[in-house]
């Protein structure tokens, strides 16, 4: 785990770049993490997904999988991949300041 400063905020990251303390997150941090991960600008659709992920995690302790995102966030799976290329759930979790989704068991 490393401590770093993103958008003037101190942030703890794990080896894969996921924040380990979700309370250190703010919107500026999200924008910076997004641009470092290939998303130059967060649109309203991006924010919808990022906020949904984050709220769900803070509520239940686990981040939703891509499939539940597609069913519940209001953004279909196909669009999720357009918004967050490669891995929507992982990328939205990273930008939303929550740990890597554990869906893989």
């Amino acid at each position: 785990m490393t401590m770093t400063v993103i958008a003037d905020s101190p942030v703890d990251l794990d080896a894969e770049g996921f924040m380990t303390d979700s309370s250190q997150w703010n919107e500026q941090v999200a924008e910076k993490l997004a641009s470092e991960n290939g998303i130059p600008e967060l649109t309203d659709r991006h924010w919808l997904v990022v906020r949904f992920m984050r709220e769900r995690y803070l509520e239940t302790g686990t981040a939703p999988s891509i499939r539940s995102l597609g069913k519940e966030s209001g953004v279909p799976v196909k669009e999720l991949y357009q918004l967050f290329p490669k891995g929507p759930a992982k990328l939205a979790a990273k930008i939303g300041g929550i740990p890597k989704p554990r869906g893989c068991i």
Partner: protein
Amino acid sequence: MARKQIVILGGGTGGTMTANRLRRRFDADEAEIHVVDRDDKHVYQPGLLFVPFGMARLDEIVRPRRRQLRDGVVFHEQEIDSVSIERDEVVLADGAVLYYDVLVVSTGVRLQPEETDGLAGPGWNERVFTFYSPEGAEALRRALERFDGGRLVVNLVDMPIKCPVAPLEFAFLADWYLRERDVRGRTEIVYVTPLDSAFTKPTCARELTWLLTEKEIELVTDFNAGEVDGVGGKLVSYDGSEVDFDLLVTVPLHGGAAYVERSPGLGDALGFVPTDKQTLQAVAKPNVFALGDATDVPTSKAGSVAHFEAEVLAENVARYLDEQELDAGYDGHANCFIETGFRKALLIDFNYDIEPLPGRFPAWFGLPLMRESHVNHMGKLLFQWMYWNALLPGRDIPGIGPAMPTRGKKNLPVAN
């Protein structure tokens, strides 16, 4: 106490073991026990892996559900319409209503090939197969018999799936089968997964990935299948990359049973039942319990899990009826044999907190863990006898219980 009504939905691995354990525990005047299932075919699901290779026949792995239930358990062969959590009632498709004091949900999962564009369309059971259903496994057996080389692609669409190692075992067994038939030289086997490794557990990914190299299985990771062209032979990911196939063996998306979605408050968006991972009480209401593949507990969807859960669940149903505190006794214990072909297999054993470790199971004299061996393959084959004769009747097997054993394991983390 007044006679209680216990209704168990699903007469598979978890439901049958639960019914039999509870039937032994309660006298006939203490509890009435009902099991509901839509058919009378109990499939020994681990056997499905062997059907495509002619190593098992459907008539050897399917038995009547009724016959696995103890006397005094009432079996209803009927579709479930819905559950009313509020009224403590199950409505069956024929309109009958079963009232319950305790409900146990053990209806497993439903395969959803229709959720992936094109997957269940043209080419299904011609060029595109799944061995996750008895009919699919049998159709694949006939296709493999005719298979004369080309690209054999094995793909799991997305987690969660039953028995996460099964598609990989399929690839290993296909390698062996095709070598024996002398067509391996003109066959490419490609394993395509949405995960970042062939294995779901990091220690397995580290220790066991060499198996794919040794068997010359090409690995494509981080591939999220969004569309299948079963006639043209193309698997297309959401980001537009493509994998060509002559024969596709797919593990379709899994969701909970359909009635869960028709039962307000019972399931989540995918139809799985939110369940306490230690007590197995459902979040929906204190008199609802769930086990096996039907739940959302964070461990593998596997028969061994249902087996270990059943012991804790039966205890907790009894405690609930007796108004006692529940036992938070399930630790996520799971184990599985991994067939690697050539009459060898690996064994892994783990729980919520401890990754698979090397050593022996269940103690120092037991089966080797995380190493290929012939004795593990024999173990996997003999297991079917144990399943019908010891596990389903709900008998305790000495040394193999809900708590993961640590005797015999190497490199255990130090408790803090």
